[in-house]
């Protein structure tokens, strides 16, 4: 039998760029559009600031999913940052996949400052996916997890 989903409390790290996605998350908040509490946002100036090391670190520390959200292609506040992020993460994700960390545990998506609805949809969808995949056992240090409360 697989682990019961009821007990599984995933841990999701979201890197959001300051100009679009973080503002999109703010708009989702202002519009009271819910997404699961397991998603914790880290603010970065641009999606290109996200070093692949950060993603690896998150997985090592027990995160079950990592999502990187930036401005839409062509709309980057720093002109080209999100293109770098996209390429880097494409490489990283396929490498992680090779290591046995499912591709679905990672995602890059584009949310503009005006897309509160999209932010919440993307986050809900990503969280659903992580729930389906279950715990990150391959790289995750399970000692880092909060004890499951009965």
């Amino acid at each position, binding site marked *: 039998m697989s682990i019961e989903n009821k007990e599984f409390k995933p841990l999701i790290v979201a890197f959001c760029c300051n100009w679009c996605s973080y503002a999109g998350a703010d708009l989702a908040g202002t519009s009271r559009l819910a997404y699961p*509490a397991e998603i914790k946002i880290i603010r970065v100036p641009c999606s290109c600031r*996200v070093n692949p090391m950060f993603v690896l670190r*998150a997985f090592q520390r027990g995160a079950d999913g990592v999502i990187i959200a930036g401005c839409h292609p062509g709309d980057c506040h*720093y002109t080209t940052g999100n293109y770098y992020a996209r390429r880097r993460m494409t490489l990283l994700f396929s490498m992680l996949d090779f290591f046995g960390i499912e591709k679905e545990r990672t995602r890059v998506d584009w949310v503009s400052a005006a897309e509160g609805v999209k932010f919440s949809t993307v986050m809900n969808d990503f969280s659903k996916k992580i729930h389906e995949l279950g715990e990150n056992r391959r790289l995750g240090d399970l000692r880092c997890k909060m004890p499951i409360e009965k």
Partner: protein
Amino acid sequence: MQRIGVFVCWCGTNIAATVDIDTVVEAMKYEPGVVHASDYQYMCSEAGQSKIKQAIKEHNLTGIVVCACSPRMHETTFRKAAKAAGLNQYMVEIANIREHCAWIHKDRKEATEKAVVLARTAVAKLNLNTPLTPGESSVVKRALVIGGGIAGIQSALDIAEAGYEVDIVEKQPTIGGKMAQLDKTFPTLDCAACILTPKMVDAASHENINLYTYSEVDSVGGFVGNFNVKIRKKARSVKADICSGCGICTEKCPSRKAENEFNLGLNKRGAIYIPFAQAIPNVPVIDRDQCIKFKTGKCGLCAKVCPADAIDFSQQDEIVEKQYGAVVLATGFNPIKLDNFDEFGYSQSKDVITSLELERIMNAAGPTGGKLLRPSDNGHPHTMVFVQCVGSRDTTGCGKTYCSKICCMYTAKHAMLIREKYPDVDVHVFYIDVRTPGKNFDEFYRRAAEDYGVNYIKGMVGKVAPTNGKLLVQGSDLIADRQLVIEADMVVLATAIEPDQTAKSLATMLTASIDTNNFFTEAHPKLRPVESPTAGVFLSGVCQGPKDIPETVAQASAAAVKVIGLLSKDKLMCNPCVANSNELLCNGCSNCQHVCPYGAIDYVEKEFRAGGKTSLRRVAQVNEAICQGCGACTVVCPSGAMDLKGFTNQQIMAEVDAICR
């Protein structure tokens, strides 16, 4: 070791209703580095801020974490407070427990847990903060206004009046924009030209204003205070400095096939033309696609008749490169294309027109000399039907989801003017809702409906069928609950408006953000409505959202004030969160230089002493005045020499660790 103070805000009940404040405060007391934790109802208030200042002094704090709303909201507020208490203003971190927590989670336990995690993440980051000092950059005391409609003209005039130089770039051969095409304006029924053309003249004759008409912005570089803009002056084929504007060339031009854009194709114009009589500048332009000289090499009649010898067929596009301190976007709107709305018969009958076309027909300087004539046979119409919300408030995907805001009022205006001039014409208006929020707007609509006998019908039109020279309008009357068929002579469609297509490319050039409808987004929908999130870029008029003329002018002046405020400064504080390279670690690979979008990284040869030997190495150096702090370079650095102040690798790692704990 840091001495950190944590301040948890209730935000009234906004946060306190879903997050248990005491739990957060209690949990924070055990975080590393935290020496003080407290809460208050409104941290951003005067009392809340003085609480913070007091605590900084009392506990000798080296940094503070404020658990409150989004840093995009009050980060500056708390930084100022910290500065006032003698702290470096970059020793402040915000944990966003309102937008990212309290407002989106209903379960109190879950929200409180998340708030604790967010707070401890901020503490973990702050533990690694170092005081930062912002650099300074100069401000070019000149503004660029993109778009020469009423919004652009008003902004430019206000900025120029304050004593700063302004350049207006307009892609059409004349300034004036959409307002120049209008006949009368609601709700006062003044004539649009009478109030606009003096302003156009003011703008053109103002010593501080420089017009670039028939020009486009080619590229934008730089940043607030120092934008570097390339303007393409398209070839007019007429020497503007010599031309006297006599207009003989436009009369003699033998080519008469081009559609007159100013009259929306209701009549024809020559290949060399001045858009309208009051155009500014009053200099013709040759439409090279229509000109016989350009097409076949023969003709050249305009050059022969020109008394000033101003025609220049060999003229080329010219690129002007200039520096600006601020940019105002005033790119305006266009009515949408009606391809998706074939049920109204716009493509099938000439007598189905848009409201803007009706403006031209009603205008004394228009194609019919101001007479209301059916476009198909120049006959006098007896029955007219207006259809509201064509493409506006449309959730089917064919049109726009938003309300175009101006249509209800201009339709009331059209109906009123027609009934006044031609009492024999029956006017019917099909509407979904009549929206009249504005000073004297509802009174105006009531006058149209009650005093002028305009027949308002609540309902939608399903089809307009051209039949035997008439238009059969099939619609529903929701109040009487019946289907109607009206035999009309003319149908006027209140077409939705959309941002000009240049908005998208300008947004990319300026890295200003636009929404899904291509309207420019404002920095804050309520508190910063005329600023773009990109510093130094301001919004004026319909490019930000549908609005009428008074609102446009108000916003244009507001944007001008913001520009004046910016240009009045001699120095701007730069963002201190910029990249810096550790020269001892740098291996000189140039990766960072290749990815930098601003060219902010230079390589220099430097001497290093190690192990008693001196060696010359090539190392990266960041120009802090140019660096915008995106961090692209930090990731490509193989030796870990490049880091971003305020968002260092260590800080973000610490944040990751704090979340996954």
